């Protein structure tokens, strides 16, 4: 087993982790756009109407990026978008924590106000940072095992 071979599989794991989580998180929210809108509004960082549209669109964006990552298609671009999403989530959760809001992150549906003792900001931030790192890995090294990129475009594209 060569070094490249191992790294390709690390990339595969990163893809499936970030893509899988995005796909599940988006999928759970697609059927409940109102809930998603309310979750985003709960962060209280942007105008109410804007938050509503972001809330409606976010599940679809997550699903699309998730599918692309799981398939390994346009890996580098998808990984960039996925990592940016995770970074945005980390910032959102951190500001909620710092400002003393007591909300559920709404990451997998749910969201909104919770009791002060029920917040899980620490775990949520740690998880999203981990997922962001998966994205960064793929950004640096987009070549992965079992990817549609390799199947469609060959090795050439992935080395760039």
């Amino acid at each position, binding site marked *: 087993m060569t070094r490249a071979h191992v790294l390709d599989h690390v990339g595969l794991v990163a893809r499936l982790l970030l893509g899988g989580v995005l796909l599940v998180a988006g999928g759970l929210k697609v*059927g*409940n*756009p*109102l*809930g998603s*809108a*309310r979750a985003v*509004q*709960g962060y209280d960082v942007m105008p*109410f109407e804007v938050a*509503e*549209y972001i809330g*409606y*669109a976010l599940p*679809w*964006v997550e699903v*699309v990026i998730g599918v*692309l990552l799981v398939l390994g*298609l*346009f890996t580098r671009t998808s990984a960039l978008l996925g990592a940016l999403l995770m970074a945005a989530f980390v910032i959102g959760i951190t500001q909620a924590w710092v400002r003393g809001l007591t909300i559920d992150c709404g990451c997998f549906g*749910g969201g*909104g*106000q919770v009791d002060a003792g029920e917040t899980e900001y620490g775990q949520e931030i740690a998880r999203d940072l981990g997922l962001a790192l998966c994205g960064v890995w793929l950004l640096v090294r987009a070549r992965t095992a079992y990817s549609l990129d390799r199947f*469609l*475009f*060959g090795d050439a594209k992935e080395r760039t």
Partner: protein
Amino acid sequence: MSNQDRKAKAQAAAGSTGRGANAVVIGGVVVIVAIVLVVGAVVVNSVRDSGGASELPQGVAAGEPLEPYADANPPKDAPVVDVYEDFRCPACKVYEEYLGGTVTELAQDGRIRLRIHLKTVIDSVTGGESSAVAGSSAVCALDQGAWTGYHEALFALQPESEDRSGFAEETYTQAAERAGLSGDALDEWQQCTDDGTYVDYVQGVDDATTEEGIRATPTVVVDGTQFNWSSVIDQQSGEVDTETLKQVLTSGDVPEDMVATQ
């Protein structure tokens, strides 16, 4: 053949076997992604407008609360009691069971000005629009002069589980019959309910009140101060301190230890 020619030829060959096809594939995928996004955006924008007829209750502006007992003509200086509720919310059912009767009585006597904000909190938890449909059906009952009975009956018939399906259709009719509607009035109420006449209105109220910061139900606000309504219920015996409740509502003054801290 020069070296350069050979390179060019090799590149052309690579292009014809791979690059050309790749461009098509890339183009195709981009188009698919774009379609998914557009469809998603369209679906998303239409979700909150799917209630059918979108009428406003008589004399009520979009996003504004109902005043089911406006006929009681409360004096201008009567305390304003704002109640934010959702027919599917279990705590709202408890509130209705314990305090609803007293609040209704005070409003009917014109001692308070009662404003009802119908919210859709459980819809935002489970998806679907059953809370909005239930709220719409209650406004239909208000149109038929059966608010009090319908309101009480529908809370009593609240489904056990909070899931997407929400109230069964027949539950509304059952509540309407319990509220004493029959004949033409029942038919008109049924038509109004089936049309989802006020679904958009109720969803609009939820938007407006959420923007104001009222995210949970039931919330009771007395002359602008949030009232911790459960403080008048004895946690052990379950008895309601009706006198205190009346005192708070009719004075418009919420004692400091009864102010809700949400």
